């Protein structure tokens, strides 16, 4: 059981041969599909999306947002984003379930290791950097329908702030200030619930007789109601602003839970497994 034969050279050659065959097949397929010269024109479907994304003169197809990519993520191709959010939700639940411990009270009190953290210079600089990261990530989330940005980008950026706090201060320091998994899991569920309610709200309106479809943003000729594009000086683009904010909350809280659970020391798991 403990003796490993050194890998014979024939296996390495077979591995390289398989990789090269795969690469050559892929090359033949792609050269047939795109050709060698770059194109100077794009497909008609892309021209349709670019022309009608912010077209005030033909409001049959518009999405009320000058950013074509964000309006396609939440309005024109909204079903893809809905299922992708559910895949992300379930993957985080799976990772938490693998790392579960029967008695939660033994872990979250001051027991094995003291929470001292790193030196004073590192702590002072980390406080400044965490403040800047929080401001930039909230700006990316709120401006998502006017400039490059959106929900996912901002959620990934704000989880880095929690990671810096765990590294420079310690996990026990954060838990004494009530940033635990017990607080972050309900915040994450509230974010995903917000997205679900906004997507299924047209179902409630259909009960009163008006035709509507799931993930509806602006009025169409056959479904004659919609969200307001802007209130006063704020340009909301229908419900894209609220989608961006709920996705930011859900992704940020999800990754914070993962970092807090991965920081639990290994001695506790060894005690539980009985080794």
């Amino acid at each position: 059981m403990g003796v490993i034969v050194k890998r014979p050279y024939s296996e390495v050659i077979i591995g390289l041969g398989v990789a090269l065959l795969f690469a050559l097949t892929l090359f033949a397929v792609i050269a047939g599909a795109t050709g060698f010269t770059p194109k100077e024109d794009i497909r008609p479907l892309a021209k349709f999306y670019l022309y009608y994304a912010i077209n005030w003169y033909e409001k049959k197809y518009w999405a009320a947002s000058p950013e074509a990519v964000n309006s396609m993520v939440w309005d024109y191709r909204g079903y893809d984003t809905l299922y992708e959010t559910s895949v992300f939700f379930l993957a985080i639940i799976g990772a938490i379930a693998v790392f579960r411990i029967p008695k939660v009270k033994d872990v979250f009190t001051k027991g094995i290791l003291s929470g001292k953290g790193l030196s004073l210079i590192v702590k002072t600089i980390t406080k400044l950097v965490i403040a800047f990261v929080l401001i930039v990530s909230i700006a990316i989330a709120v401006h998502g329908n006017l400039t490059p940005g959106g929900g996912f980008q901002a959620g990934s950026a704000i989880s880095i702030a929690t990671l810096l706090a765990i590294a420079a201060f310690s996990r026990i320091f954060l838990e004494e200030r009530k940033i635990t998994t017990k607080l972050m899991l309900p915040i994450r569920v509230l974010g995903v619930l917000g997205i679900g309610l906004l997507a299924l709200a047209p179902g409630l309106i259909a009960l009163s007789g008006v035709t509507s479809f799931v993930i509806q943003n602006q009025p169409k000729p056959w479904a004659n109601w919609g969200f307001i594009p802007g209130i006063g000086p704020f340009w909301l683009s229908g419900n894209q602003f609220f989608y961006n904010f709920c996705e930011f909350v859900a992704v940020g809280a999800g990754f914070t839970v993962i970092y807090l659970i991965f920081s639990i020391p290994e001695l506790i798991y060894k005690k539980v497994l009985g080794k």
Partner: protein
Amino acid sequence: MTSMVSQALWIYFYITLIGLIAVSVYGIVVRPNLLKKIIALSILGDTANTFIIFLGFRRGGAAVPIFPSIKPTPEELLWFKETAVDPLPQCLVITAIVINMSVTAFLIALAIQLYRLYGTLDVRKAVRLRG
């Protein structure tokens, strides 16, 4: 309109991307450590995303698919339609990045649990220990 140097550079781009796919598939098949396999899998996913964005590129006077103001005139809309890069591949790539990230996080959790139960991360040794 495209000169010889441009043609040669575009062929070189495709050769580089095919080389990246070959390196990552070699890493998945031959290397025995589980964490090295996960690193190679993430490189493969990123190369596939770059292929998709190459398909939507427009050569010669391109622009970002974001319009600079809220109230456009009809002539500006026609200019935008004839100059901007394809936005549909970028929407699909954002979805693909989030799904790859969540699957990789779950795989790393499973690899750590495998080390706790079997005592090794080498797949050649772990295959022989059953149960």
